[in-house]
């Protein structure tokens, strides 16, 4: 009898907490978030020419020489597949890692002939999520010459754009300085 009573209490309490923490809590949070921060709560989606063209938080793959490139993405089956976030999980001593990095370096050097050395590490290493929307300001500056040439623009103009779109640390302290690749490329198209 004792056990049955215990079991009954356990089941009732489980149901109550499923109701409170499993339904009421997420629904109330959704309500408040949708009311106060609808843009953020719905994925920070951006519109361009009346079309949804991406999320400010999810990276996209760029390989065209007239666009800024982001971090290499290991998601399957194609890069920046938002339905399947994943890191590369390459161990530092993995024998495949070094050749892979060398290949990325060679590609960068081929496309940025003025910058054979001093390659920014974020351009040759995969991000944690495979969807990293950002690169370091240094990685953007690194590509400026190539983009200026491909778009037949003044390099100074590109550098100015990078400076303008660089996001600084929060309160000058938290995080790292960075720049959003999709927003940068949209701004390029608008130039």
């Amino acid at each position, binding site marked *: 009898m004792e056990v049955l009573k*215990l079991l009954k209490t356990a089941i009732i309490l489980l149901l109550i907490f499923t109701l409170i923490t499993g339904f009421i809590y997420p629904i109330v949070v959704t309500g408040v978030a949708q009311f106060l921060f609808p843009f953020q*709560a719905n994925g920070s989606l951006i519109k361009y020419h009346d079309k*949804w063209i991406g999320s400010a*938080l999810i990276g996209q793959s760029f*390989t065209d020489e007239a666009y800024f490139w982001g971090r290499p993405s290991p998601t399957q089956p194609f890069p920046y597949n938002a339905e399947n976030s994943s890191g590369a*999980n390459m161990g530092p001593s993995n024998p495949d890692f070094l050749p892979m990095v060398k290949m990325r370096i060679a590609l960068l050097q081929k496309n940025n002939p003025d910058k054979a050395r001093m390659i920014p590490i*974020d351009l040759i290493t995969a*991000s944690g999520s495979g969807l990293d929307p950002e690169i370091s300001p240094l990685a953007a500056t690194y590509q400026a010459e190539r983009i200026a040439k491909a778009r037949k623009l003044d390099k100074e103009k590109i550098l100015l754009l990078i400076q303008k779109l660089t996001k600084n*640390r929060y309160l000058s302290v938290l995080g790292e300085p960075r720049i959003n690749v999709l927003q940068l490329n949209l701004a390029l198209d608008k130039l």
Partner: protein
Amino acid sequence: MTGNGILQIVLYFLIILACVKPLGWYIAKIYENKPCGLNQLLQPIERYIYKISGVQPTQEMGWKKYLYTMLVFNLCGLLAVYTLQRLQYYLPLNPQNFPAVLPDLSFNAAASFVTNTNWQSYSSENTLSYMTHMTALTVQNFLSAAAGMSLLMALIRSLVRHETNSLGNFWVDTVRGIIYILLPLSFILAIALSAQGVIQNFKPYQTIQLLQPIHYQKTKIDSLGNPFKDAKGNLIRETVKVTEQKIPMGPAASQIAIKQLGTNGGGFFNTNSAHPFENPTPLSNFLEMLAILLIPSALCYTFGLMINDKRQGWALFIAMSILFIPSVIITTYAEQKGNAALKYLGLNKTASSHFYSSGNMEGKETRFGIVNSALWTSATTATSNGSVNAMLDSFTPLGGLTPLWLMHSGEVIFGGVGSGLSGMLLLVIITVFAAGLMVGRTPEYLGKKIEPFEMKMATITVLIMPLIVLLLTAIALSTPKGISSIANPGAHGFTEVLYAFTSMGNNNGSAFSGLHANTPFYNIAGGMEMLFLRFWIAIPTLAIAGSLVRKKLIPANSGTLPTHTMLFIILLIGVTCMVSALSFFPSLALGPIVEHLMLGG
């Protein structure tokens, strides 16, 4: 490391330190059933819950009753999480029409969430429905965290009370822990996170047009899924053009808030807190890092208040901090130094506050850089949180060794909410006993005599974890099913397996996620390990509580070893390090240390 990096780490500690006292005070009031400021609002709800569930809030429980109640409650939770996953196809709030989760994975996830481990064998955004996230995972995030705190309260009461059997009421502790502590804090954090860009909605996945289409190669298959082959038998490749991206959606913020506060750590997305929708900005990252350490550190102060000697609480807090801070420094240093294998490739190695973080960026996000990834990693493995904002598998050997060591210490350096401090108190018992033997006096702690029974039980809890972890690692490494999941060859592959069983055995949940853990072997072995260690350790812990609470309080005399002095703190740290070092040093030497030497770090 740049000056700014040091500033971020210091700032983090200062804010945690500032929160310890007020939150610790608040938690003590909740479990002592005293007015706390939210009573008028929440007490009617609390009373109503007792009324419909038939709980008698004034009825006290002995240690056995407390234990049974906890086990039965968790068993119900286990069955519920399993069933919800198996039935998810037929349940609402499944806009992507995900099929039922496979049995071995459902079992692993159920064990994982009920035990506060939150090991993530599943790839969330293409496996679990919103319904499963809300009613199975989020609910257990609350319940398992509250259960950990309840267990701690029973242990603390056994030191406060004397010559009685009663340790409190498990139902009351759990209900109060959720509605007064976890729910309000989670609500505030969830709203703050959604302001930063963590999604919170019930929409189906959204399709957007890519700015630049993607072309990729794949094997051509016919309508039955068989690959086409040319005359020579080679597979035919075709180029596929992708013009759209599918952006996942869902109620993420509400789950992430409690996942961090309750030291749970199971993500809404596959890549956990590295995913931009779980952790979009440096501020969200900072808030989530604070949430990881918030309750475990505040509980030290709660302990001091409840036993009416704050110095004892601070002594434990200091011991934990002394073990924690060097781990942060080592991880940050190793990651900032970078991967020795890439030394001569012509990379830019000058970190600068304004442009570039440099260091080992493989598996790390740009917005977090080196410092925030290393700090997060230390915090998440010191506590039993286990969420990750960078891929630990790609850390340098020494950067990956520290999180492994932090877990090997038994999750007592802050540890899980409740379970961490309980574990530390057991180590205190061992320390008191060892010190008593050294000076030839009867060991006692806070006026309670520590006798062979307590010592035996404490030893069981401390030794069972290394035994199971090492045994399972050995089994995995000597069976084809265990080895075939390894992603990185050599010493690193060994570390992957050791890390997996260490993480599950200590109810942490972080991973060297290259390991393909979603196989029946790892799902079932890991699931059993999580359940066994969480609940097996609960038994001797509560048995100690049951024994201590019956004892008389002896007033301190000249022969009593004071347990709040620096001397005792050093002894405690020594015992903590010794227990983990003796058990695990050989395995660390085979894994990360060999790898470090091979890379010529």
